[in-house]
């Protein structure tokens, strides 16, 4: 092949791959076509990698083959993790993607310097800065999610000032490099400072904020890849990066809204500070509790039940028991649905995956906007391991730290049942008035065993 035909051939494989990537995301919009989307993505990837291997500038294939094989071998176990571990796996994959981008950017700089046009130097700086901070930031997020690192946020005075001044130094170094691309001694600053910044950025962030963090890191990873596309003049990479970047961006916005945080809050990564815990006046308020037997009889008499799962359910590994409950009630003709808050899991959509894994049909999984109008017609709302996302104070109490946060309106159901270990307040330390309502029954116990007890009562095996 002549070089021209060769180049055209490669570009055509890239063009087709781009179209397949866009179709992949389009097909992902609904569960019925989603798997087709994965296949389209895979085909696009094979075409693009295959086409690249024909590039005539390649003089040696040895290390390419070794790296491709090694990467694939590492990728397989990462694709087979347990569903509860998907958030940390995702964070780790952001780290891998960002590492690739930062390394390629670094190599490109040292190969080309000092002949780097200003615009290329600018995007190259952005590529390396974003790639490096996403790399360490994502590793930190992985550590927190895997609970290797403490999940508790660590904050100190002037934290934002320290972080932002660090980043400013990196940006100034980048500006100097744009003007004088030959200043090779400045380039390590574009790697080192963001690496430190990535760690410092995640240090003040608590476990409950992870859905927002992961989405934001996803967006950064995408943007850094798009910047790499500018450096290498690869439209394929620009488009894939832009798609990934906008996806992460949209998810960050959805998550920040669901967590009651402003958008600037998200952009500047200042979302770590857990709101000062509101200490509620300790007046002796009465709660009504119930046994599994009583709960079972109320559920059996209901026409419609909405189950509201929170991460506590997943921690207790109760999803399979919940599925048995769903089966038992459905068999009795009870209409059972699930109301899922956007931040119910550790990453966007995580709770849906956990319930789908337990074989609960996805058409029963309703998002917040779809389920909220149904609560007034619901006989029983059963809350399992969720707290703040059901707290009516978010709607009514202007003094509450979570005021304004969108919640699931479980308090509008005719009867509310809450499975909870004890009366201790949830993660944010905010008391939940839901528990003191006359229509609320507290079911004290471990989510898994309590749901199991209800299922046994429903089956009638517990007593004659």
């Amino acid at each position, binding site marked *: 092949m002549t070089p021209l035909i060769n180049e055209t051939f490669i570009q055509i494989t890239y063009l087709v791959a781009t179209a397949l990537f866009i179709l992949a995301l389009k097909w992902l919009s609904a*569960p019925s076509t989603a798997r087709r989307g994965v296949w389209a993505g895979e085909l696009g990837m094979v075409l693009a990698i295959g086409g690249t291997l024909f590039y005539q500038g390649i003089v040696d294939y040895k290390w390419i083959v070794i790296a491709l094989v090694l990467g694939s071998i590492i990728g397989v176990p990462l694709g*087979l993790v347990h569903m509860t571990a998907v958030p940390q796996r995702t964070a780790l994959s952001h780290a891998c993607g960002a590492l690739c981008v930062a*390394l390629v950017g670094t190599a490109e700089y040292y190969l080309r310097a000092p002949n780097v046009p200003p615009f290329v130097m600018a995007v190259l700086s952005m590529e390396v800065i974003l790639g490096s901070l996403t790399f360490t930031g994502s590793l930190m997020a992985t550590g927190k999610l895997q609970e290797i690192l403490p999940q508790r946020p660590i904050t100190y005075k002037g934290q934002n000032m320290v972080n932002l001044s660090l980043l400013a130094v990196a940006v100034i170094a980048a500006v100097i490099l744009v003007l004088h691309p030959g200043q090779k001694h400045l380039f390590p600053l574009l790697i080192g400072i963001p690496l430190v910044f990535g760690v410092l950025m995640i240090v003040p962030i608590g476990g409950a904020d992870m859905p927002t963090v992961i989405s934001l890191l996803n967006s950064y990873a995408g943007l850094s890849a798009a910047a790499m596309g500018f450096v290498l003049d690869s439209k394929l990479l620009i488009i894939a990066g832009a798609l990934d970047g906008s996806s992460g961006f949209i998810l960050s916005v959805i998550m920040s809204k669901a967590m009651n945080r402003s958008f600037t809050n998200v952009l500047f990564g200042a979302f770590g500070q857990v709101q000062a815990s509101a200490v509620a006046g300790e007046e002796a308020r009465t709660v009504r509790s119930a046994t599994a037997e009583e709960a079972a009889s109320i559920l059996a008499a209901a026409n419609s039940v909405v189950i509201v799962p929170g991460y506590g359910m997943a921690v207790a590994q109760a999803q399979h028991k919940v599925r048995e409950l769903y089966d038992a009630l459905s068999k009795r003709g009870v209409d059972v649905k699930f109301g899922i808050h956007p931040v119910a899991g550790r990453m966007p959509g995580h709770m849906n995956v956990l319930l789908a894994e337990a074989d609960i049909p996805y058409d029963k999984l309703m998002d917040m906007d779809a389920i909220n109008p149904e609560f007034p017609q619901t006989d029983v709302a059963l809350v399992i391991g969720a707290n703040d996302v059901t707290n009516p104070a978010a709607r009514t109490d202007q003094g509450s730290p979570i005021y304004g946060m969108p919640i699931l309106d479980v308090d509008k159901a005719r009867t509310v049942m809450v499975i909870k270990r004890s009366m201790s307040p949830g993660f944010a330390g905010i008391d939940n008035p839901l528990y003191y309502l006359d229509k609320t029954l507290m079911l004290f116990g471990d989510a898994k065993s309590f749901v199991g007890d209800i299922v046994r009562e429903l089956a009638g095996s517990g007593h004659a």
Partner: protein
Amino acid sequence: MLPEEENVTSNLITSLYVFMLAGFLGFQVIRRVSPLLHTPLMSLTNALDAIAVVGAIVLVGEHKSTFATVLGTVAVVAAMSNVVGGFLITDRMLRMFKTSKPKKP
């Protein structure tokens, strides 16, 4: 401006247009993804993002310096683990999503 510089500039402008259009397209397509599938969405976009591997492959293959080849090799390994792991887990997740309604014949 030298003709070469002019070429670089016009290329960059074209790239900016491509970036902008892809960003808008991304917003439109991804807004339609059901919240049900937000986790698979993230793992799939991650796998697609690992297309950066093609840049790394070229870097390794051109073998312009040992430094570049070493960095490129690590980059290919990192990106390739995302490609394989990302597609694998996305497909595993999507296989679990089943409906209670009977399938249309």
